[in-house]
């Protein structure tokens, strides 16, 4: 049996074998997803995500040319500038939603699903899984991307702006991270937890 999160309806848990999602038959909420080879997919995608994340944070994000002057900026520069202006709350929020949340999500997915893939049980899997679900809505990298587009339009009249390699990695990271999160089939984690008892 399964109970819907959104409308509290008790219903028989559909036995999904193939890829798909189980919907509540009263309110249409997603009850769970069924993904074949979920652990392998999540591990592969989050590994790719971690590499993209590293590139996005190390290499320059945007290069900015005004006349003969040229400056480069990384993802972290904006956070540091906000902090330097004394807006630590704002700096913290941008840091959390664009850097910390996606990074923690990627690390948690590796931490939970790599052992599952290898047939082991990971350390502290229960709080890790809960945290992973809670972080989902605080990762706003796709909103940040729209922010970049708007800022670019605003500045094109003042200077020439060249998107750096970090920006392309960041864009790819949006899709990889979404793909990884939707490849999670929670049942394989909880079946393992049940079998441990």
């Amino acid at each position: 049996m399964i109970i819907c999160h959104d409308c509290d309806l008790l219903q028989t848990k559909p036995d999904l074998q193939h890829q798909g999602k189980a919907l509540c038959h009263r309110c249409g909420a997603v009850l769970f997803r069924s993904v074949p080879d979920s652990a392998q997919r999540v591990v592969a995608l989050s590994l790719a995500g971690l590499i993209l994340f590293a590139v996005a944070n190390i290499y320059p994000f945007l290069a900015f040319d005004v006349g003969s002057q040229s400056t480069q900026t990384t993802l972290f520069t904006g956070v540091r500038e906000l902090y330097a202006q004394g807006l630590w709350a704002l700096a913290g929020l941008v840091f959390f939603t664009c850097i910390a949340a996606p990074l923690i999500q990627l690390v948690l997915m590796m931490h939970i699903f790599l052992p599952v893939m290898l047939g082991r049980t990971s350390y502290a899997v229960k709080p890790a899984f809960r945290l992973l679900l809670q972080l989902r809505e605080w990762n706003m990298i796709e909103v940040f991307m729209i922010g970049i587009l708007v800022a670019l339009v605003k500045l094109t009249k003042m200077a020439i702006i060249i998107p750096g390699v970090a920006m392309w990695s960041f864009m790819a990271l949006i899709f990889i991270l979404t793909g990884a999160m939707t490849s999670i089939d929670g049942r394989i984690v909880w079946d393992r937890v049940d079998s441990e008892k």
Partner: protein
Amino acid sequence: MSEATALASSLTGCHTCNQVVRLDKDHHHQGLLCPRCGSPLHPRKHHSILLTWILVSLAFVFYIPANLLPMTRVVSLGQVQEDTIMSGVIYFIQSGSWYIALVIFIASVFVPVLKLLLLMFLLISVQRKSCWRPRDRTRLYRITELVGRWSMVDIYVVTILIALVNLGALADIDAGPAAVNFAAVVVITMLAAKSFDPRLIWDNAALPEDSAMKT
């Protein structure tokens, strides 16, 4: 539509691992943990309606300075220019980038108000024990959960502008007082959507049919 909720059968579902848990009839439902994954169980979120009302009102309080005060302050060649969200939108319309103006207007002005009005509508409908189209109201709730994050766009624009322009030594850009208020609106409305319990919509919707069955 006539099915009763799990709570009516003294059951609740874990939101983390989907475990079905039996509730003690006399027991208080506070501080319950899922026996499988240890997550806190909320048969219904505590004080959901009151808490959501408080957060919605608080968001309105922050929404006013967020729109009236300047978002950015640019100092260039001794001249100071202050921009609010609306003056930024107008600037984009005048410079011909109406699609960017539309993005900012929707994300910064329209979405927060839409979200707060939707939440107020849901709160009132639950308090009036309405049984009007519960499925559609649940959909409206999902919209409030989804759209809130997009209001962060303007915060990010300011962050990027500050990073680029200050480094380029073109001009000085400071984030204005609206930025912090605006960030507060986004975070508070997200918390408000989280504190609202959509299952309350269904509690009332199931009632008339239940009582009809009993009589």
